[in-house]
């Protein structure tokens, strides 16, 4: 019964979106984590999604595959530098380095992840209802 694999597919989608949500939260939480050198500064992270192949029993169908997180990449955007000689982490020139997290972008990311998560839940709910109606066929 192919309706069952919707649970698997939407499940992988939900888990991928929750990874994205986690990473976004981490970015937002560290948006102001200052440090004294470029190397030690937190960089914004973003997950990259890909197609999950050769896994689960649904792989027999090439057009039906789940989502998988290929990896989390760090943003290469320039870090923010701020002149703050009184800051305990300031370097010799009196500068502190701040992460390259774009808070507005992260908020948009979070809303997008939340919407996609909801879409997957909706698909699961519909599949569940249809399965239940199929089970009660002829009663």
């Amino acid at each position, binding site marked *: 019964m192919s309706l069952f694999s919707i649970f698997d*597919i939407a499940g992988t989608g939900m888990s991928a979106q929750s990874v994205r949500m986690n990473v976004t939260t981490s970015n937002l939480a560290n948006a102001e984590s200052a440090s004294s050198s470029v190397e030690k500064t937190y960089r914004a992270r973003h997950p990259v999604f890909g197609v999950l192949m050769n896994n689960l029993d649904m792989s027999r169908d090439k057009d*039906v595959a789940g989502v998988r997180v290929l990896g989390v990449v760090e943003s290469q955007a320039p870090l923010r530098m701020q002149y703050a000689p009184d800051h305990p982490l300031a370097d010799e020139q009196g500068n502190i380095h701040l992460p390259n997290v774009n808070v507005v972008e992260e908020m948009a990311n979070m809303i997008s992840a939340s919407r996609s998560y909801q879409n997957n839940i909706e698909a699961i709910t519909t599949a569940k209802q249809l399965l239940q109606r199929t089970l009660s066929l002829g009663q």
Partner: protein
Amino acid sequence: VPINLDNAFGIHPTALALRAKRMEVLATNLAHADTPNYKAMDIDFKSVLAQANAENSSVMLRATHQNHLGPSGRDSGAGESLYRIPYQPAIDGNTVDTQIEQAEFGRNAISYQASLTFLNGRIRSLLTAIKGDSQ
């Protein structure tokens, strides 16, 4: 009139199976709404159903020699999933339009329920025929 139970349900079991299959494909599209380079897919329901129905009902050519070719419809790939033509492709190569996919998903769910209702009707009339009582 003798009832052939194989044909008693008509087109509906095939339609139901295809609806479930299409549902799966649409759910995959929804799950991949944010996957770069993912291309949204769909099933051409009408042609696949016509094909499945033809295979079920019509007289098939029998291959009596190993060099005989199969019926043309089966190998033509008409039952394959097709890529959706995007209205507005994203810059990352993704062609899933969540709104369209959701609309199609909803419509497909309703059609699935319609098939279920038809099947229920058939079952009920068969039961009435078997029991013979008019309540």
